[in-house]
């Protein structure tokens, strides 16, 4: 209980430790989640995705400033890939937001993907929940854009922002990933570069082609130069405008429901994955042998594990 109280009061030390415990799957921390979750739902979640080099972190550094000016408490969850070879990671996003490093109302947390593909893991969601419970008004999620990852992000966030850069061949990527349907705001960063106008026109053309009903949200395109803090205000405005739209149209409820569904799916998947680890080693080995020797089939074997009586 004491830990929860601290978190609700905004105690960074306590919240950070809880986030760590959840990330590592420490039983005591996981037990706290139940209590923490009940206190979430206030924070507005913005997902920011885009290819490496698009300038997401720098852009976030600017956005933090914009929302601090609006007197909002800000949380950022920044995810970087874990090296599949070494299991280690360099979490370098924070670096570009460090100008806010001394602001008590900004909480930046770097996470390594730890093998999760698509950049959205339970650790990410749990971190968001803790920040939410702490009283953050707006939480930014940043990850490497990788097709599937961007789609997941879009399902989790209230507003999904996709960052593109002229000349990086982004047009093709966005079409493939189905991101056109999912993104709420497009940002063209490094917009001083050649090709920015062309990219904008391509985007506008593609958006015109995707079917949206009237009364639905029309995604906007914002041009920025994050390194010079240009375009930040219009972007912040656009995010707020989207939020207002969600509230007035009733879409907010739909999105939050969608997020809950995704979380449930992730939790179930995670629990199932755990089953493999917690099943008795010898039993597992025998099953694998049987499978290899064609004495059983994958589905039957899986059901055996799932239906094992809980010890």
């Amino acid at each position, binding site marked *: 209980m004491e830990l929860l109280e601290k978190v609700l009061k905004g105690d*960074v*030390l306590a919240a*950070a*430790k809880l*986030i*760590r415990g959840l990330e*590592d*799957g*420490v*039983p005591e921390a996981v037990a706290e989640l139940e209590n923490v979750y009940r206190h979430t739902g206030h924070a507005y979640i913005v997902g920011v995705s885009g290819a490496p080099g698009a300038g997401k972190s720098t852009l976030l550094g600017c956005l933090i400033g914009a929302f601090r000016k609006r007197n909002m408490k800000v949380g950022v969850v920044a995810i970087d890939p*874990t*090296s599949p070879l*070494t*299991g*280690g*990671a*360099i*979490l*370098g996003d*924070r*670096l*570009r937001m*460090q100008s806010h*490093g*001394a602001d*008590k109302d900004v*909480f*930046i*947390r*770097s996470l*390594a993907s*730890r093998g999760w593909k698509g950049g959205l893991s339970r650790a990410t969601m749990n971190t968001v929940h803790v920040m939410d419970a702490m009283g953050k008004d707006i939480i930014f999620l940043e990850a490497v854009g990788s097709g599937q990852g961007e789609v997941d992000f879009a399902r989790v966030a209230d507003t999904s922002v996709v960052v593109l850069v002229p000349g990086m061949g982004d047009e093709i990527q966005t079409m493939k990933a189905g991101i056109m349907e999912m993104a709420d705001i497009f940002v063209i960063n490094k917009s001083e570069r050649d090709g920015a106008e062309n990219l904008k026109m391509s985007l506008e053309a593609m958006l015109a082609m995707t079917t949206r009903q009237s009364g639905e949200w029309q995604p906007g395109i914002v041009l920025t130069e994050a390194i010079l803090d240009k375009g930040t205000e219009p972007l912040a405005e656009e995010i707020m405008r989207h939020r207002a739209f969600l509230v007035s149209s009733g879409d907010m409820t739909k999105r939050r429901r969608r997020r809950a569904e995704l979380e449930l799916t992730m939790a179930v998947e995670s629990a199932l994955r*755990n089953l493999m*680890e*917690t099943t008795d080693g010898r039993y597992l080995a025998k099953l694998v042998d049987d499978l290899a020797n064609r004495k059983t089939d994958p589905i039957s074997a899986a059901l055996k594990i799932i239906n094992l009586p809980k010890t």
Partner: protein
Amino acid sequence: MGKPERKIRVLIAKPGLDGHDRGVKIVARAYRDAGFEVIYTGVHQTPEQIVNAAIQEDVDLVGMSCLSGAHLHLFSEVVRQLRERGSDITVVGGGIIPKEDAPKLKEAGIKEVFLPGTPLAQIITWTKENVTSK
């Protein structure tokens, strides 16, 4: 119960105005190659920025580098602020540090001082032996 995967998280920081980052970047890579998660704050950090980052990231180790001679003040200031805020994170340092300053730094709460020429393997081994995630 599932085995919790406890990775060691390390914060690498350059306090003060010294911008020489060749060493810290090498150490950061070495940590990554050894399986740690490394957060690098970049150059020109104030002690306050470093401490905030360390606490927010709930790291197990803070490693600082200073080549400008200001290490006695900067390193001890980081330790002081960390302890003041209730954090017991282990702090180590390296850079251009005369040998006779090492005991003073240790007195101020720096657990280990890595002098110029220390092999990377030594830093990694020391970390594995002295730093655990709590």
